[in-house]
């Protein structure tokens, strides 16, 4: 992974695209997930900093599913990216036990004595993405992360 390619001129971009990635190899797949999100963010026309923030958010969500949902066992995760100019929506579907990351309590303050880094990934996701929704459908967790503004820092 390196510097993102400059986005194509808007006239050359299709208005809406959907792409899918299946993750089966646990943490070893994370680089592939980042590359997938980088390509989708580029299609949406986001700059490198925003693209990186989206990669971070999606990888944190996938890493949580691998480590806590599937507890490092292999389990399938399907990542779907819908892109349109200025908008990226990533849907992450897994079949781990139900977990709603939108309702998990997080204390954003950090002191060295109390600093548990657990939960920091969820804090990062909430700070990066502009809209987050969760649905439990049958045995599936469905997490939707949407970015529709450039990331310019915390």
């Amino acid at each position, binding site marked *: 992974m390196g510097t993102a390619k400059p986005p194509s001129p808007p006239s050359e971009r299709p208005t809406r695209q959907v792409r899918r990635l299946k993750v089966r190899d646990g*943490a070893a797949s994370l680089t592939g997930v980042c590359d997938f999100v980088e390509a989708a963010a580029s299609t949406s026309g986001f700059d490198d*900093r925003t693209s990186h923030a989206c990669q971070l958010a999606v990888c944190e969500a996938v890493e949580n599913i691998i*480590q806590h949902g599937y507890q490092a066992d292999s389990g399938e995760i399907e990542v779907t990216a819908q892109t349109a100019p200025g908008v990226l929506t990533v849907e992450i579907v897994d079949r781990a036990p139900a977990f709603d990351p939108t309702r998990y309590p997080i204390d954003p303050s950090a002191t*060295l004595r109390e600093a548990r880094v657990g939960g920091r990934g969820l804090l990062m996701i909430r700070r990066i993405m502009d809209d987050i929704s969760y649905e439990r459908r049958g045995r599936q967790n469905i997490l939707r992360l949407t970015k529709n503004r450039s990331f310019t820092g915390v």
Partner: protein
Amino acid sequence: METQTQVYPRVTVMSVKGRVDSTSAGELETALKKLLDEGKSNLVLDLSGVEFLSSSGLRVLVTTLKAVRKTGGDLRLAQSSQRASDAIDLAGLDVLFKSYGDREAAVASF
């Protein structure tokens, strides 16, 4: 991920390059623990080459910070890449670390 270590009389600088995520965080933790085991507790991490830093990598930085502070040392950050800096800020951990724009300033701060 790659690390490179430079030892000064009072300070040790470790440069980190590449991706620090759950697949490489253990490797970084081992490299930092080795320095602690050698009694090196004044540490500077040069993050200029970091392309990706997830919460797994941040966990290693916080764990190391706690360990060196217990022995009277510190872990300070130097010339963090935009990506590393964004990850630290997004995780709300920027308040824990002293950060410097260049590694000479970070080394001289000890």
